C-alpha cells in the first residue's frame, strides 16, 4: 500500500551533516497496524512526517498504491495525522475541530454533521461536542484528535506518539481503544512510539529503528522471540547476552559452545556467522537450579521480587552476569538465597545467535 524506497533525509551540510533517515525501505500493507519503534532521535518521527508531507526527503521515493506521494503537498495527501501534542485548534469547539477536515474537503453540510456525529460516538465524546478544547482533559483531547483525523476517512492514519502524554492507566485503555478503532475502521495505522510494550501489544508488524535506519521488521512475536541483533534484543524486553563460539550453522540451527565449555543447539538469525558470536537468552526462558549438570554455573548475587515474578541475578563463573526470571506461581518456590552456588539451564533452540 505505502511503498517507501531508499528514502534518506539529511540535515545540515559539511561536518554538521546529519542523516535523520539513512536509506530506509519498507512496505506498509493495507489494513495493517504498523509501528515504528525506536529510541528518541532514531528517525521514526522523520519517517512519519515524510509520509505526511512535512519532511521532504533528500533521496528516495514514497508512493501509495502506485501514486507518487512526494509530488503532492501535505493538504492533498490522503493521510491524516494524530499529533503528539494533539494540535487541537484552541479557537474551535470539539465539534468544529472534528468537522475541520471535512469542511476543507468541501463536503455537503448534512454529510459533515452526520460524519461528525458518528465520529463523536465512535470516540465517546458526544456529550462534549460544544466544549472548547481547553476545557476537556488530556485523555478527551486525545480522543478528539483521533476523531478529527479519522473523520475525513483517510486511507492511512499516522500517529505520532499519541499516548505519551497520558498517564499509565489511561494509556492502557487507549491502547485497547486504538486497536479497536483500527479493526473497526479498517484504516491502515502507522504508529510511532518509543514504548516497546505499546508496540508489542497493538501492532500487526513492528519496525525497529536505530540511527535513521530500520534494523528489523516483523510481528511483535518475531521481534521479541527472534531479535536479529543486539540492539533489537536489548531495546525490546530484557535479554542476557552470552559470548559463545559457533562451531556450525545449518539453516536456522547453530551448534554453539558456551563459556562453560558445554555445547548446545541454538537458533541462528539469517546472516549470523560462525566463530565468536553473541547468544541472546530471554530471562524467562532460562531456569535456575543446582549447579550440578547445569549449562552454566555461578553465584546468586541478588533476588528482586516483582510481585508477578522474581528476578534472580547470577554472577557466572566467567564474570558475566545473567538474570533468570521465574513466575511466582503457587508451588514454584525456588529455595535459594543470596550467595548460594547455582546453575542456569535453558532448552536447546531457545537461545538466539545474533548477527553482530
Amino acid at each position, binding site marked *: 500500500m505505502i511503498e517507501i524506497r531508499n528514502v534518506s533525509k539529511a540535515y545540515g551540510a559539511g561536518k554538521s551533516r546529519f542523516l535523520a533517515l539513512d536509506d530506509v525501505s519498507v512496505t506498509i500493507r493495507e489494513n495493517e497496524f504498523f509501528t515504528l519503534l525506536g529510541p528518541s532521535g532514531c528517525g521514526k518521527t522523520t519517517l512519519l512526517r515524510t509520509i*505526511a*508531507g*512535512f519532511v521532504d526527503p533528500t533521496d528516495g521515493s514514497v508512493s501509495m498504491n502506485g501514486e507518487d506521494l512526494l509530488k503532492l*503537498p*501535505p*493538504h*492533498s495527501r490522503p*493521510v*491524516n*495525522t494524530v*499529533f503528539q*501534542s494533539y*494540535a*487541537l*485548534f*484552541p*479557537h474551535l469547539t470539539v465539534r468544529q475541530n472534528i468537522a*475541520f*477536515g471535512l469542511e*476543507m*474537503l468541501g463536503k455537503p453540510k448534512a454529510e459533515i454533521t452526520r460524519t461528525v456525529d458518528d465520529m463523536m460516538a465512535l470516540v465517546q465524546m458526544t456529550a462534549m461536542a460544544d466544549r*472548547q478544547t*481547553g476545557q476537556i482533559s488530556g485523555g478527551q483531547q486525545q480522543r478528539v484528535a483521533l476523531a*478529527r*483525523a479519522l473523520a*475525513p476517512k483517510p486511507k492511512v492514519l499516522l500517529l505520532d506518539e499519541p499516548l505519551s502524554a497520558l498517564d499509565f492507566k489511561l494509556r492502557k485503555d487507549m491502547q485497547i481503544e486504538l486497536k479497536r478503532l483500527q479493526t473497526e475502521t479498517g484504516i491502515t495505522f502507522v504508529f510511532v512510539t518509543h514504548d516497546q510494550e505499546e508496540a508489542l501489544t497493538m501492532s500487526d508488524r513492528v519496525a525497529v529503528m536505530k540511527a535513521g535506519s530500520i534494523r528489523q521488521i516483523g510481528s511483535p512475536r518475531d521481534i521479541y522471540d527472534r531479535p536479529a541483533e543486539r540492539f533489537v534484543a536489548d531495546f525490546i524486553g530484557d535479554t542476557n547476552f552470552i559470548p559463545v563460539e559457533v562451531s556450525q550453522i545449518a539453516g536456522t540451527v547453530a551448534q554453539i559452545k558456551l563459556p562453560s565449555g558445554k555445547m548446545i543447539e541454538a537458533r541462528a538469525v539469517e546472516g549470523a556467522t560462525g566463530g565468536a558470536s553473541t547468544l541472546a537468552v530471554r530471562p524467562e526462558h532460562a531456569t535456575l537450579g543446582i549447579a550440578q549438570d547445569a549449562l552454566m554455573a555461578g553465584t546468586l548475587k541478588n533476588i528482586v521480587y516483582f510481585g508477578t515474578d522474581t528476578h534472580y541475578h547470577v554472577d557466572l563463573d566467567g564474570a558475566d552476569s545473567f538474570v533468570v526470571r521465574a513466575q511466582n506461581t503457587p508451588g514454584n518456590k525456588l529455595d535459594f538465597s543470596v550467595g548460594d552456588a547455582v546453575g542456569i539451564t535453558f532448552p536447546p533452540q531457545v537461545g538466539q545467535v545474533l548477527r553482530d
Partner: protein
Amino acid sequence: MADVSEVPSARERAIVRNRWLLLTPALAILIFAASGPLLITLTYSFLTPGDYGGVEWKFSTDAWFNVILQRDIFDDTLMFADAHLSILWRSVKLSLMTTIGAIILGFPTAYFIATRPKAHRDFWMLLIIIPFWTNLLIRTFAVMELIRNEGTLNTLLMAVGIIDDPIQILYTETAIMIGMLYVYLPLMVLPLYASMERLDFSLVEAGYDLYATRFAVLRRIILPLVKPGLIAGSILVFVPSLGAYVTPRVMGGGKQLMLGNLIELQFGQGRNWPLGAALSITLLAIVMVALIFYVRAAGKEEVPHG
C-alpha cells in the same frame, strides 16, 4: 467558621489602612495626570476666547457650535463647517488607510520573523525597533527625502526611464499616509509578532494535514489565533494616526491639515483656545467610540489563547 473570619481584627484593619496610605502617591498622580488636563480642556471649551489667546471666564457654547457648524458672516444662516468636516474626514480616512496598510505590511513581516530560528529573531526585531527609537522628525524627513520630486524614488524611476517627469507625492494625502505608515509600522509589528511567536505551529501543520490550503490555513487558523495581536496593533496605529501632528505638518506641507494640525492652529495663530479645546475633546470622543466599536466587534468570538 464564617462568623470568625468576617470580623476583621485590629491588625487586619491596620494593614488595609497602610495599603491605602502606600497607594496614595500613585493614585494622586493618576487622578491629577489623567483627569486634571482633561477637566481643564473641558472647562476651556465652554469659555469665550480671549483677544490675544487664552480665555475669558465667560460661559459660552460657541466653541462647540463651531466644531461642525458655522454661521454665514453676512446673512447669519447656519451651515456645516466644510473646512472642519473635510479635515475630520481626512483624519479618519488617512488613519484607517494607515492602519490597513500597516496590517498588510506588518502581518507578513511579523510572520516572517516569528518563523525564523529562535537565534535569528532578535536580529530581525532589532531592525524593526531601531527606527522606532530614532527621533520622529528625523524619520519623517528621511521619508520626505525618499519621495520628494528630486528624491531617491523619482530619481530612480526617471533614470530607469519609467517616467519622464517626477511624480508629485510630497505635500499630498498619499505622502501623509506613507509617512504615518512608516512611523507607526513598528507599533503593528510588535504586538503581532508577540502573538505569532506564541502561536503553536503544529496547529498550522494540523491544518495542512486536514486538507486546508495555504489560504484556508491563514484564514481559519492563523488569523483567529493572532487576532488579539492584530487588535492591539490596529489600536496602537489608529489612535496616534488620528491625532498625528508632526507627520501631516511635514509631509502635507501645511496644505493637508489633519485634526492635530487644526487643534494646534486654534491654540496658535487662530487664538481660539475654546475651539481648540472643543476639537481636542471631539478627537478624544472619536477615539473612544472607535475603540468601543472595534473591541466589541473583535471580541464577539472570544479567543482563548493558549
